[in-house]
């Protein structure tokens, strides 16, 4: 109950920020529109057109009215109208969402599975994989785009086996029914971005799993399990692993914020048509409705995933179920 209230409060705060931020900061989206969204066309606004646009976006109303309007729009799922793309923001986002989900899901699974498995192993044989840990720690500190550029140079330029840009071959003819050909093409295009994101995320999983495993190994229940004659493999997976995975689940929820930032950078680097690339385009053209919606969406996604992680941990860990929700 208390955690439900906490999440609700955070949600309210998030909405408050995304309402207040554009209004508190100086800078005028209409001016950006007038300068043609930064780059392309030069659009000169007459005073009447300026008034019309202000009225259209409700920016000529007093603040409380704007707030009411904002709340109403949010309830209807209306995220506004993109200035540069002349499309509803919701539509833009829904078009891009699948690509980003593909990248995020694949890279999280890769990083989580391999990171946890390697972390469990390294923790189990402590002292054995020190060099691997060191390398991973340093790789994990690199900016996403540096890792991505490294991979491009390695697998796209020096040994050109993977496409380095886009989500599919342009104008590729998949022949309608030959989905297999298209799938291979999509997979090849997703390979480098997914690999980059996974490589950047993996160290956190590895290091935390290793630390958690080391912590569990000293516990007496491990000795008890061994004394009962369980195989070492069973001790590692069912006993150590199950306990060590708990902080990982928390990490999963908290990593999403970092991952979203990584998605923006990586999709931009690889020209991948997801939400991150949309963020980049919107930032270049100062498309405030889109930027605001993406910020809000990111925050809601982080909160939702954290709430899910809380619930999941409670499912796995009976000790948490016994206590009232903190």
């Amino acid at each position: 109950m208390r955690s439900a209230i906490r999440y609700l409060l955070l949600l309210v705060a998030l909405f408050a920020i995304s309402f207040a931020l554009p209004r508190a900061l100086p800078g005028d989206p209409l001016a950006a529109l007038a300068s043609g969204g930064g780059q392309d066309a030069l659009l000169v606004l007459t005073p009447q057109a300026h008034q019309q646009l202000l009225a259209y976006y409700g920016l000529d109303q007093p603040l409380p009215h704007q707030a009411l309007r904002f709340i109403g729009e949010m309830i209807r799922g209306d995220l506004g109208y993109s200035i540069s793309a002349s499309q509803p923001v919701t539509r833009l986002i829904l078009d891009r969402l699948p690509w980003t989900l593909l990248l995020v899901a694949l890279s999280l699974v890769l990083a989580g599975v391999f990171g946890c498995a390697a972390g469990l192993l390294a923790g189990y044989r402590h002292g054995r994989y020190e060099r691997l840990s060191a390398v991973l720690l340093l790789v994990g500190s690199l900016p996403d785009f540096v890792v991505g550029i490294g991979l491009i140079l390695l697998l796209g330029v020096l040994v050109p086996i993977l496409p380095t840009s886009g989500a599919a071959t342009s104008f590729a003819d998949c022949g309608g029914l030959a989905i297999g050909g298209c799938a291979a093409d999509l997979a090849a295009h997703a390979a480098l971005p997914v690999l980059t994101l996974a490589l950047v995320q993996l160290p956190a999983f590895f290091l935390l799993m290793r630390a958690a495993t080391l912590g569990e190994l000293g516990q007496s229940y491990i000795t008890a399990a061994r004394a009962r004659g369980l195989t070492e493999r069973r001790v590692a997976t069912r006993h150590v692993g199950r306990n060590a995975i708990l902080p990982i689940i928390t990490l999963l929820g908290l990593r999403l914020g970092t991952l979203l930032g990584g998605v923006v950078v990586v999709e931009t680097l690889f020209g991948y048509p997801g939400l991150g690339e949309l963020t980049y385009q919107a930032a270049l053209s100062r498309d405030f409705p889109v930027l605001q919606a993406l910020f809000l969406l990111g925050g809601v996604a982080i909160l939702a995933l954290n709430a899910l992680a809380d619930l999941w941990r409670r499912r796995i860990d009976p000790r948490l179920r016994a206590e009232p929700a903190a």
Partner: protein
Amino acid sequence: MKTAAHISAAVRIPGLSRGMARLSVAVPRLQPRMAIGLSIVGLTSAMALLAPLIAPYDPHAYSAAPLASPSLQHWLGANDVGQDTLSQLLYGARISLLVGLVAAIASTAIAWGLGLLSGVSRLADAIVSGSADLMLALPVLPLVILVAAYLGASVPVVIITLGVVTWGPFARIIRGQVQAELRKPYIEAARAVGTTPVRTLIRHIAPATVPTAVAKFVMTVQYAVVAQASLAFLGLGDPTTISWGDMVHRAALSPLIFLDNSWLWRLVPSALAIGLLVVGFALIGWAIEERSLPTLLRLRLAREVDEG
């Protein structure tokens, strides 16, 4: 236990105040890791400080033919408009370090101040806990992009934004340390001899949190350097300055970059410089942590969890 021996040796040094003794724990004898980290950061600082003296050309000037390959006149060649890469690399170090250091100073000061306060004041406690919670839910890079889009991504804007969005989790860690410290007998002793709460806080509790603050500082520098480079990489750099992220942006996002081998000098030096500097800070942070392990193990976890 090397670490324990080192700590006790440091604490026993006569004539040193308590705070200094603790500080000497945080600034360890040079381990290889620390030495490598310090030399990378030191080299970058030298580049930044000496840039006007040693840069062969004005980094903004069109001093070479566009895409000129490396030569005796232009050691690292030139970019697509003919600006000297080496000069840009030297000047670019300034932005990375400036943003990293100032943002980290601001963030550490806020985290430390509020963390200490929240150990003794209910109101500050509520503020710190609430903001730390909120900061965990904020998508930091999209937020910074949004602010940078509104205000223009000038260096001060980036510094202030990064400083403001990164202090939460560490304030909470400091708060935990303050509360742990408050329960120790020596605090009771101090109270018994009539020390005021404010004096206790400054004289006794604050020094105990110095190692944490030092480690936090290094981590935040690293984080801010990455964030600034990422922003510049996205084209949200300050258009009047040259930074490594801008250089990567120009090179990596130009569609024809891999058609010839000009990426060798247009892309690799700046990307490498960013990577190296970040690794340098990571090594320093790592060495510091390992020195003052028990308290900072938690910090390591928190960092992994909070900032990546």
